[in-house]
């Protein structure tokens, strides 16, 4: 084959298209495979009944609740801390060695495997603070785990707000804080929501950090001081212990569908928010 601009262009299109096609194919295959095996198991009873015989029979209702509660509490803790850090770094400091160390630290935190967070949570929250296996221990651990994601995405979103908006706000007699509240955060919100969505996704899918800190109780939790089991942990135990492959796939299917639901819902909310601000 003769190398000419025309041929290399054709080759590039083929390779890039192939890469995209392969990625999509793998994604579709995984989803179809799991939904194919899992969907037949799902019924109202499967969703809303309590499990029996360790999950071999019955439903997954407590794990559904656990999967809902744990990420919510984690985000509730991580969001103010993360957005606060991002605002502080981008609005209240100029680039200096201290801010570089904070950024380096958050980047390192982002690279730590989740099992390490699990062990830390186990040693610190569960054992040292004597909180035991409970939703709060798990949520605090997950909050630390997703903090870097929230800080980084929020900071990028905040930096993307035009500097001219800040100038205008200040020139109209706003303090820095009023500018943050009225101009910077509303305009950074879509980016912040994206970070929150990524974080919720990670929390929902997390097993290692959860199993060590929130435990794996199949009872319905009554407060954040009760242990719980998330769907991901349930799936892991069902498959690992060979309790029930069908129910494991059923749980996985519900897990995937919930992630899709959460994502669609948040994008819908975000678009509504943007539309209302700029109608």
């Amino acid at each position, binding site marked *: 084959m003769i190398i000419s601009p025309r041929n290399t262009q054709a080759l590039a299109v083929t390779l890039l298209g192939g890469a995209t096609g392969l990625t999509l194919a793998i994604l579709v295959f995984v989803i179809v495979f799991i939904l194919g095996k899992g969907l037949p198991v799902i019924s109202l009873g499967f969703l809303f009944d309590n499990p029996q015989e360790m999950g071999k029979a019955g439903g997954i209702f407590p794990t559904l609740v656990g999967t809902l509660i744990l990420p919510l509490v984690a985000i509730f803790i991580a969001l103010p801390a993360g957005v606060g850090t991002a605002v502080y770094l981008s609005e209240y400091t100029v680039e200096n060695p201290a801010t570089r160390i904070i950024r380096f630290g958050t980047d390192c935190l982002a690279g730590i495997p989740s099992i390490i967070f699990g062990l830390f949570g186990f040693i610190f929250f569960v054992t040292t603070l004597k909180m035991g296996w409970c939703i709060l221990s798990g949520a605090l651990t997950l909050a630390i785990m997703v903090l870097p994601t929230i800080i980084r995405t929020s900071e990028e979103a905040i930096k993307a707000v035009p500097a001219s908006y*800040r100038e205008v706000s*200040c020139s*109209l*007699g706003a303090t820095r804080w009023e500018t943050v509240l009225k101009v910077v955060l509303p305009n950074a919100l879509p980016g912040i929501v994206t970070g929150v969505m990524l974080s919720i996704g990670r929390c929902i899918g997390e097993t290692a950090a959860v199993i060590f800190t929130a435990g794996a109780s199949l009872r319905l939790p009554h407060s954040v001081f009760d242990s719980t089991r998330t769907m991901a942990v349930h799936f892991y135990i069902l498959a690992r212990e060979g309790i029930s492959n069908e129910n494991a796939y059923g749980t996985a299917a519900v897990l995937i569908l919930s992630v899709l639901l959460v994502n669609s819902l948040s994008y819908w909310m975000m678009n509504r928010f943007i539309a209302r*601000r700029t109608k």
Partner: protein
Amino acid sequence: MTDAVKIANRNFSVFYGATRALRGITLDVPAHRILGIIGPAGSGKTALLRAMNRLNDLNPDCRVEGQILLDGVDIYQPDFDAVRLRKRVGMVFALPVPLPLSLFDNIVYGPRLSGIRARTRLNALVEGSLQAAFLWDEVKDRLHTSAMRLSGGQQQRLCLARVLAMEPEVILLDEPCSGLDPISTARIEEALIALKSKYTIVLVTNNTKQAARVADTTAFLFQGELVEVGPTGQIFTMPKDQRTNDYVSGRFG
């Protein structure tokens, strides 16, 4: 001139990092007049303007020397509140920057910060300031649509109205017509002339003809120095300095 002095720049300098943008300017801004500031790019016009409402404070590399007195009080003394200063000294920027809010919310941004909540009062401010900026008739039916949808000229008049709604004492304008067509420019100029009875206006402009048309007093800055200031007619017809003469007659700049 026996006019009252609203703002007095006293031997005032501005540095951006190691660069000196303004060299010891001493310039009075007469009350209830339009002061035009002309000069080629890089002459320090904008630096001077942004010093007068301390917007330079936002730039950590910026440092100032000397004094700026507003009604005789130094605005750079340590315990002077820059946020309150900016409510008294409003600014219109070169490019119109409406906030991504409705027209109404743009205009009441400043008043709300000052604690004005009553709907009737806010409505009155919006109508009054839009009237004064000659924009009311064009937008009165769509006050609650996004300000981003206005044309460039309308956006700049909105920015002027937004400043007027703060009921400031001084209005600083930084080349407000640089991106506008001649008709929009004429509207803005018309508004400024009507406004000078109530406000003190400082107009930085790249367009010497604009200064000739609207300014009562004109100052010529060149390379960070104040070359000459005087009644506009005199600056344009018989300037004392050769450089002023060259600039206003279009020989450079």
